[in-house]
């Protein structure tokens, strides 16, 4: 059994359009990852990480995976930035 060429359901988008969307979001994700690594100050990096998580969620949607999108949105948008900011607040308090 091999892959399908193109299928028409009420929910599928024409293949060239999906291709264009996926290429765009892939390039954005690569740029986002570079931005996260090149931001050296940790507090700023957390904000960039949050935006990167949003970009990843859009990529997972373009790959037809809504469950993974949900997980990434909640974890990368809320839980991870909160944990990081709490840890940063703790170490910053010691330095003062």
């Amino acid at each position, binding site marked *: 059994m091999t*892959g*399908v*060429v*193109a*299928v028409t*359901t*009420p*929910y*599928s988008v024409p*293949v060239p359009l*999906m*291709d264009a969307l*996926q*290429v765009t979001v*892939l*390039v954005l*994700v*690569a740029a986002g*990852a*570079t931005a*996260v*690594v090149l931001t*050296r100050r*940790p507090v700023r*990096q*957390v904000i960039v*990480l949050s935006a*990167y998580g949003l970009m*990843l969620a859009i*990529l*997972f949607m373009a*790959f*037809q*995976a*809504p*469950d*993974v999108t949900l*997980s*990434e949105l909640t*974890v*990368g948008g809320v*839980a*991870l930035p909160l*944990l*990081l900011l709490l*840890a*940063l607040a*703790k*170490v910053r308090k*010691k330095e003062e």
Partner: protein
Amino acid sequence: MHILPFVVVAWILAVGLYGVVTSRHLVHQIVCLIVVQSSTYVLLLAVGYVTGAVAPYFYDIPVHTPAVDPVVQALALTDVVVEAAVTALLLAFAIQAHKRFGTLDPQELADFKG
């Protein structure tokens, strides 16, 4: 388009690893580790994609509609949540290291003994 997602995975992995290796702050290192982990999610989903297919949820579409591979989605889904908890554990280590040694620079921490 045939190999673009896999090339992007290699790029994210390499960039994340570069961040881990040349970092001067433990929390920055942990965030770069998060980036490395995210490359594996993209790889998993890219492997299972079928051109022109829809998401594997058959609530309102007929059961034999061609859909993308659901197994890799199941793997990536639990992955995302569990790695967040493991990152919390790493952050706890970083906090204790800061309390004990007073510095968060991994290259200085490497010189401490015990």
